[in-house]
């Protein structure tokens, strides 16, 4: 074991950094502002001079604070990030540069429409690409993320059912392998949820689904490729059965990146699908967002699209902002402030134009090739959950760890010391101890080979026996060892308070 004790507590590039509140130098600021003009104030009796408690720092201190924090993060720019279902592909800096053009960054959603024609054109152009790539006639641009896009799709579906006298339908069917947002979204839309089992081949059990279809079912939500990284081969039959039962077919498009340029989802019988621009179209994840979840809609659902939406007329573009009138007569209403995630749209279109349709098709091909390469090479020691070719991601179960005392979590934590971000763990729920890996198309063969070598070595080490303790001690080289999540949840400390106040509050809460 390396001796890591230093006087400062720092370890070379890993520098311990206090909270900004603990760095307060009192009264200083990193922003110099001009003096205010002398005027009569008009704040009524709402003015407050009570201290807020914000710390004051100078600019160099602030820049150093965040630079040090940044160095405690793993990122795509740092290395391989095979987090399954999350599509951690390279984020081109050109997208950032384009989003910062004053003509995109310094415009207001409510400036006169005649002065924002470029903004509407950008939204319309991106919408055109999304509609063409999916073959769908309409797209709702305002959803802010994947889960929000799901909600948009289900709100369109419920509104359509109500318009067609089918409002009594109150059930949504979701496969047990689905991401948690699917059932959570259905519940927010006022639906009950029943789950559909999977077959041994990792696909939706179509017979079990058919048995659940009834005049009570509003929609079936299916992720395709599914969370096991497999294409739902019976997708078209599923769509036909769903439609025959009078329900709509929602496809979760989180994994659309595997299909771009290969198949149009309209040709699979889909009624609605959200597209995660922050996955498929490479806008940065930013440590948790923002994203955007435009939702493509079939002809049956197009009329119920939320406001606002852009329309093209003889005198240029305009935006329809109010439901219940004109082109938005049947719109279900508004689900997001202003014009949606415009800054994300700029980045996505910048990526799409750079790739072109030929590049996008190549990208889905390379993504699937990389995943299959991992599948084949890792199968030397790991146990794939399903046989045969996978799509953009591959899932292994933990049977290769049987009787070793080592868990999926332990392998993931050991990978951290190897310099890789772990894969998604314990998801999908239908695979025991799942290790779900999505390499994406922006990784080189050399990177994949390094990762494969590390993971195979870890698997072999686990299988040697008597290694559980070593694994449980991982990671050792990261900025932190394993953190106590149980304590964090049992005695939540969710904010900084002046010395000892948190301790008192926590004690009080515990009592």
């Amino acid at each position, binding site marked *: 074991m390396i001796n890591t004790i230093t006087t400062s507590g720092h370890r070379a590039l890993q520098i311990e950094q206090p909270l900004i509140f603990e760095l307060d130098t009192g009264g200083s600021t990193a922003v110099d502002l001009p003096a205010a003009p002398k005027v009569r104030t008009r704040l009524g009796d709402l003015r407050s001079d009570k201290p807020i408690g914000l710390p004051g720092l100078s600019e160099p201190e602030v820049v150093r604070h*965040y630079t040090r924090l940044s160095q405690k*993060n793993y990122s795509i720019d740092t290395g391989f990030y095979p987090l399954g279902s999350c599509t951690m592909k390279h984020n081109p800096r050109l997208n950032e540069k384009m989003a910062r053009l004053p003509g995109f960054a310094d415009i207001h959603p409510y400036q006169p429409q005649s002065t924002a024609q470029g903004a509407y054109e950008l939204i319309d152009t991106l919408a055109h690409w999304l509609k063409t790539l999916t073959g769908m006639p309409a797209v709702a641009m305002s959803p802010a993320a994947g889960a929000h896009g799901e909600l948009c799709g289900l709100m369109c579906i419920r509104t359509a059912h109500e318009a067609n006298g089918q409002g009594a339908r109150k059930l949504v069917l979701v496969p047990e392998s689905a991401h948690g947002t699917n059932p959570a979204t259905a519940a927010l839309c006022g639906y009950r949820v029943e789950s559909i089992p999977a077959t041994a081949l990792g696909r939706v059990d179509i017979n079990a689904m058919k048995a659940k279809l009834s005049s009570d079912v509003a929609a079936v939500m299916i992720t395709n490729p599914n969370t096991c990284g497999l294409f739902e081969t019976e997708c078209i039959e599923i769509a036909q059965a769903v439609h025959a039962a009078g329900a709509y077919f929602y496809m979760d498009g989180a994994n659309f990146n595997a299909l771009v340029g290969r198949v149009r989802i309209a040709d*699979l019988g889909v009624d609605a699908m959200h597209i995660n621009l922050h996955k498929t179209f490479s806008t940065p994840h930013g440590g948790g967002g923002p994203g955007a979840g435009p939702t493509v809609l079939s002809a049956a659902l197009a009329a119920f699209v939320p406001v606002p939406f852009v329309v093209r007329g003889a005198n240029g573009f305009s935006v329809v902002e109010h439901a219940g009138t004109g082109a938005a007569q049947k719109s279900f209403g508004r689900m997001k402030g202003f014009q949606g995630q415009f800054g994300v749209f700029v980045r996505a279109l910048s990526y799409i134009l750079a790739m072109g349709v030929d590049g996008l098709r190549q990208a889905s091909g390379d993504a699937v090739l990389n995943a299959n390469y991992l599948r084949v090479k890792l199968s030397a020691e790991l146990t794939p959950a399903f046989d045969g070719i996978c799509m953009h991601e591959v899932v292994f179960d933990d049977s290769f760890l049987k009787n070793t005392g080592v868990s999926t979590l332990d392998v993931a934590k050991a990978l951290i010391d190897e310099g890789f971000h772990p894969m998604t763990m314990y998801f999908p729920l239908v695979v025991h101890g799942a290790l779900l890996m999505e390499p994406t198309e922006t990784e080189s063969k050399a990177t994949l080979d390094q990762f494969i070598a590390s993971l195979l070595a870890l698997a072999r080490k686990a299988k040697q026996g008597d290694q559980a303790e070593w694994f449980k001690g991982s990671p050792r080289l990261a900025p932190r060892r394993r953190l106590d999540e149980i304590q964090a949840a049992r005695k939540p400390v969710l904010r900084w308070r002046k010395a000892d106040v948190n301790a008192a509050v926590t004690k009080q809460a515990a009592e």
Partner: protein
Amino acid sequence: MRYLPLSDQNRAEMLGSVGVASVDDLFADIPAAAKAKAKFDLSNTMSEMEVERVLSAVAAKNLNASQAPSFLGAGNYRHHTPASLDYIIQRGEFLTAYTPYQPEISQGTLQAIYEFQTQVALITGMEVANASMYDGATACAEAATMACRVTKRAKVLVSGSVHPHYRDVTATALRFMDMNIECLAPDPVGIEDLIGRVGPDLACVIVQTPGFFGHLNDYTALAEACHAAGALLVICVAEPVSLGLLKSPGAMGADIVVGDGQSIATPTCFGGPGVGLFTTREKFIRQMPGRLAGETVDENGRRGWVLTLSTREQHIRREKATSNICTNSGLIALAFSVHMTLLGEAGFRRLAELNHAHAALLADKLEALKGVKILPTAFFNEFAVQLSKPAAPVVEALAKRNILGGIPVSRFYPTYPELENILLLTATEMNTEADIDILVNALKEVLS
């Protein structure tokens, strides 16, 4: 294609390893008939400079606020962005990281979220804040549904002071959850009676300060009335810079405070992405939506942070979760937090003073004009004015003079003819006295 590292030789080797002849063979599971229809009339790959040329031409079709004095607000505000802020949020370790699910290698993001939660709680005067929502409007909807869960009631009252998008998004959410909402008419004069409407069936009352039309209200008495009736008070803050100068919603007795951090975090960006702020009282944390970072220790006893209380969230609770939110607005929350750190208490207060002074200066100069009446007696950096003629054509006429001269309220409320002459004007630290004079002189001409 420059974003794709595999060479043809790599591909050939890898296909050999996989045991297929071509990449197309990897897509054999997709029905052939569907694949055959996949023809696209779209452009092919472009060089970096071609993309820049195409998109710059599109951007040039917009009149941006660096080219024209701008007095637009209504929930989306133009403030100065310090250069170091944009540098920090473009660091790849922040920009290209995912949600911090692996805390050992995500302490940067987690500590920043914890600092963000603390800052948001401090400025709103509340006990706890979450890691962010999409925007102010969706945060407001989440507040309404949370109030229904907490009180086990199903009716929400929305004041006419609330931003119409916050109101509409909330109405959409509640309608699909089969709950009731009553929205009061827009209230440009600031006379609505809320206390008289509080009753035992209400889950919450939603108000906004500064109000959509600019009014400043002390909601302390309303909070007391809500609590007496077993209801919650939700206060929206669409312009958080105001919190540098005004009595906090927490001090008024709010139970949930939501808002949009855009004004502090990012340029206007045509309205998105923003960052939803969400705060509440400690006793309600298990009913809160969204992610939370919490403090803990590692195996060596060193302080660190993790995402916590996730048993509220969709990936654990599925259909019983408090919300379906997953991706939030992490990077914009970071931008908000960095700017707040740069400002500090002194800078935050000074920024708020400067905003109010510019708006008051604008109001002073407008009051000298005929045909302009300022509606709120107390305001922060934005106020509604009643013009002698319809506001929409006035704004168009100002745009022709290269001035982004406010927002006609009719664009938000097309079905209220009595609001036709009302214009919303904002002045921030970005509006110099020279800008203000340009607007006032042009308005004088347009109104005459």
